[in-house]
């Protein structure tokens, strides 16, 4: 479904060139749930934006559904770290925004029904007419989730969507997303820095190392679903994989990554 070959990304920053990503080869199968996990600054969000067509790669090729990515596609949805809702629109009209912007979309009543179904699925029935500021952070992010599902995308790209929420809400939403994923055939690429999220959600976790962002390892997560972090979980498996991811993420970065110039210059 998604194919990255030798992808690299270089930014021209104020302090010269920064290599954000280097030699990324990744193949995500249709219907698969892949998480990109790494420390902040490892280029995982950049990688997601390359797949979304929000950013052209400096080198290499990005393909979605067998076609090279040249810009945002209608069958790929993007979910942000913050809810990114338009504050003057009701919950329902925020969910319907992608349909409204698509000049080719027809059957608007069908989409309206779908929006109601989606909102019900995430427990927001009765909130259709509310404005975003009347909702809690978790509810807002649920609205955002519905918005990214409204056009029944083939691919969902999620950029740390739950990281701004409190721990309990985060776990709740992870389990909800897992449930939704089990019903849909959508391919999901999910960026996170939380080992917990990766273990609950992913079929495979791609571990990235920072500066420049490189693929360190791909960890298969074969714990049976539905997974939970509560009792009756496959605790041994969870512990084994969490430990492994932790080990990979905690590795010391190579000395050449340290940039002494920063400190000298700031004096």
């Amino acid at each position, binding site marked *: 479904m998604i194919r990255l070959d030798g992808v690299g990304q270089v930014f021209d920053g104020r302090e010269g060139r920064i290599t954000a990503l280097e030699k990324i080869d990744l193949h995500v199968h249709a219907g698969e749930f892949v998480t990109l996990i790494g420390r902040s600054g490892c280029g995982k969000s950049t990688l997601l934006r390359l797949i*979304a067509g*929000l950013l052209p790669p400096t080198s290499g090729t990005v393909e979605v559904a067998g076609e090279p990515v040249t*810009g*945002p*596609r*209608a069958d790929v*949805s*993007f979910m*942000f*770290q*913050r809810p*990114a809702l*338009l*504050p*003057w629109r009701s919950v329902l009209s925020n969910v319907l*925004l*992608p349909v409204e*912007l*698509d000049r080719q979309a027809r059957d608007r009543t069908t989409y309206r029904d779908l929006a109601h179904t989606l909102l019900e699925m995430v427990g927001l029935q009765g909130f259709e007419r509310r*404005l*975003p*500021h009347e909702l809690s952070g978790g509810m807002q992010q649920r609205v955002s989730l519905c918005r990214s599902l409204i056009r029944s995308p083939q691919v969902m790209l999620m950029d740390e969507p739950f990281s701004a929420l409190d721990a309990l809400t985060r776990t709740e939403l992870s389990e909800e997303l897992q449930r939704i994923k089990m019903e849909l055939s959508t391919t999901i690429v999910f960026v996170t820095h939380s080992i917990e999220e990766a273990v609950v959600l992913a079929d495979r976790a791609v571990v990235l190392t920072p500066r420049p962002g490189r693929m360190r390892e791909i960890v298969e997560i074969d714990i049976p679903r539905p997974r939970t972090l509560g009792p009756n979980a496959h605790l041994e498996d969870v512990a084994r994989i969490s430990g492994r991811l932790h080990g990979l993420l905690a590795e010391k970065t190579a000395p050449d990554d340290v940039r002494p110039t920063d400190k000298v210059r700031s004096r």
Partner: protein
Amino acid sequence: MTAKRSWVAHSPVAAVVLPVIGLIGAIALWWLAVIAFSIPEYLLPTPKDVTLTFFEQPAYLLEQLWVSFLETVEGFLLSIVVGVPIALLIVRSVLLERLVYPLLLMLNSIPKIAVAPLLVIWFGFGQGPKVLMVLLVCFFPVVISTAQGMKSTPAELVELMRSLNASRTQEFFKLRLRFALPQIFTGLKVAISLAVIGSVIAEFVGATEGLGYVITQSGASADTSLAFAGITLLSLMSIVLFYGLVWLEHLLVPWAEENR
């Protein structure tokens, strides 16, 4: 004690009653001072004198009020028609911003009163120069607030629109302009107060009608009561215009009150 304090702070009745009591108190104090120190009417008239003066010639004064009102509103609307597009252009193009922005700053630094006689020389004694003066006074806050508002769109929402393949027109109307509205209104509220000042200034110089003209004329004949009546009408007009805008803002951007 605490119960009393919370009534003062939170009760909707208190929110109306207390200011009215304050106003009545101030007027009573004014009246009392005039009587107690036996101040002559040409220096400080009593509230009664002012009211009587108004009812001596209500039709005439309301007519003058209408003249000032039209000048103010026309100039204000004109400043929106001219100011908003200029702000949009400035935001769109760095070149234009560099070219035009310093000019605007210079224009704004001119004391507007100093221009009033020139406007009379150029455009005569009619309403034109008055409207122009109001435009000059209002223009700057409108441009600045619109430009600021257009720049305040959160980056994540711009990225969202891009990820949804929105056209530039859609991004402009469905996102940027909507997001700028609260800040535009802030500018408009500053501008409407200035607009009243602008029309009065313009009427001080080379006018034949309007409340500003009435006030200068009353000064010449030491009719202080008439001046007070004119000033009161001007303040009332200013308040009505301001709260009209507040009401419009409440209708158009109800979401903004909770957001900032």
